[in-house]
């Protein structure tokens, strides 16, 4: 895990690849193309790149029209503005008619860092998850992000892909990685508890698993890259096999992965759950690593949560 790559860089790469093989792919941005990496697509396919200016509602509405006329638009901005500012347009103009719009939003989560709370989107997964017809993807690393973008282009319907600003450890091997929408991935097996993680928290989960192993605690680690539709089978099986679950996400503990996993468990196989995530609070300025510590999103926090959830297991 020594190599690092930002998922937004993977997005830029994937767009270039898509542009070459699929002439219907059109990329839209709202004056953030250098940050979202859509300018990489623009350099190669200027005629298929559309800047809407600082106007996120129009970004999504225009994408809806393009999709209704047979194009495959990728609309990009920062997660805060793409999902928050344009929420109702996404719901009514994209998801309701199930149009083939891909919303790939970068700078998600608290690790956007120094810009502070106004730019730290910790509700986007929750917002997108409640909309019918919407597929919600949160890749763990660059390899997964690129594969997710390529797969999203093949899927016919609205997709939200959450991407980050900071470089994150590369977990997967590009040569043998296969992305399937809605399919969780078991990264490690164990019997004492299961850590279900998403996005940048997957590498923290793997780190936590190592630390726990040193203390003789064996955990299963599952990567949920698709928050919706969520992989119910892998979650229920983990509950049956290990009897306790910890969820980990760089997102509010309300409405995101933790909530989604809890919903599956209470309806199928209730076991104790501990949620590692942003605890219903706004963030603040700081560098990514400082913020991850301050808001309880480190491997150590996951370790603590695992110990706590094991103590809550029923005899």
């Amino acid at each position: 895990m020594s190599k690092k790559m930002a998922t937004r860089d993977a997005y830029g790469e994937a767009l270039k690849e898509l542009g070459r093989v699929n002439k219907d792919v059109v990329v839209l941005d709202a004056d953030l193309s250098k940050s979202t990496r859509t300018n990489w697509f623009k350099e190669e396919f200027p005629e298929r790149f559309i800047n809407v200016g600082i106007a996120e509602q129009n970004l999504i509405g225009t994408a809806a029209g393009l999709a209704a006329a047979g194009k495959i638009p990728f609309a990009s901005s920062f997660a805060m503005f793409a999902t928050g500012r344009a929420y109702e347009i996404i719901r009514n103009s994209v998801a309701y008619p199930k149009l083939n719009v891909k919303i790939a939003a970068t700078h998600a989560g608290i690790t956007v860092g120094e810009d502070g709370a106004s730019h730290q989107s910790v509700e986007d997964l929750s917002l997108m998850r409640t909309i019918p017809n919407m597929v919600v993807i949160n890749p763990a690393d660059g390899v997964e992000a690129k594969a997710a973008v390529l797969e999203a282009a093949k899927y016919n319907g609205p997709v939200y892909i959450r991407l980050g600003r900071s470089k994150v450890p590369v977990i997967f091997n590009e040569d043998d990685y296969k992305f399937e929408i809605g399919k969780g991935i078991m990264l490690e097996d164990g019997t004492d508890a299961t850590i279900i993680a998403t996005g940048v928290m997957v590498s923290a989960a793997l780190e936590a698993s190592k630390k726990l192993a040193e203390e003789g605690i064996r955990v299963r680690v599952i990567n949920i890259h698709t928050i919706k539709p969520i992989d119910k089978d892998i979650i229920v099986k983990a509950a049956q096999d290990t009897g306790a679950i910890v969820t980990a996400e760089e997102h509010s503990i309300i409405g995101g992965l933790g909530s989604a996993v809890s919903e599956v468990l209470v309806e199928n196989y209730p076991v104790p759950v501990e949620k590692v995530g942003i605890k219903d609070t706004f963030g603040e300025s700081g560098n990514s690593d400082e913020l991850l510590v301050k808001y309880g999103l480190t491997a150590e926090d996951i370790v603590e949560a695992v110990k706590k959830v094991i103590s809550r297991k029923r005899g």
Partner: protein
Amino acid sequence: MEKHAEFKKIATTLRKNIIKMLNESGSGHPGGSLSACEIVTALYFKEMRIKPEQPKWEDRDRFILSKGHAAPVLYAALAEKGYFAKEELMKLRKAGQMLQGHPDMKGTPGVDMSTGSLGQGLAAANGMALAAKLSNKDYRVYALLGDGEVQEGMIWEAAMFAAHYKLDNLTVFLDHNGLQIDGENKEVMNIEPIDKKWEAFGWNVIKIDGHNFEEIFEALDKARETKDRPTIIIAKTVKGKGVSFMENKVGWHGTTPNDEETEKALAELGGEM
């Protein structure tokens, strides 16, 4: 023969069907549907290149009813064109039926875009017009906006966009009847000078009487001939047009006629129940 008698007859048929379907549903929006009858008639019965037997034909002209609450006028026109059976009109807004309260492109043949939440139709129209340019296709895109609807900020994001990208294959009608739910535009939130605003945003602006076919057709001709910029046809209309007791009455925005009112309205329009 009176000029455009044929189109006037169609507009009257649409009006009658609007009244009938709203009476039947007991819910819906007569005022803004009646004000747009000539515009919708001109588009569907003369201007637009469409194939009702092939609603998803790729090269068809598109129409987006941005003021989605005027769905009855669109449904009446689509039924008249044969996109679906006229009996469907009488099932408007009923559970389990095709005709939703606001247009649903997935459920109704001939509906090109789902609308209803105001302010979103123009951006979608832009996307379709842009798609035509990107694919070197010559279809045109038409949209109908309400005058209250232009109070939405997103309309102006989209207005800026259409001019910036020189979408001359886009023609927009503004159904300028002057009324919205809470009263007159000028009292609720003044939109004037509306022509100057669109001009300032880089649009070709044409002002007409929205109930006069001669003027509508002429404006559409001019729009088609205009290059490098989109056209907006600001159509002065009367809300509730054609039914004397509904004309210019705010209250008829979203109130449906009872049986007695329906009979009276149809009698005025020259039809029977």
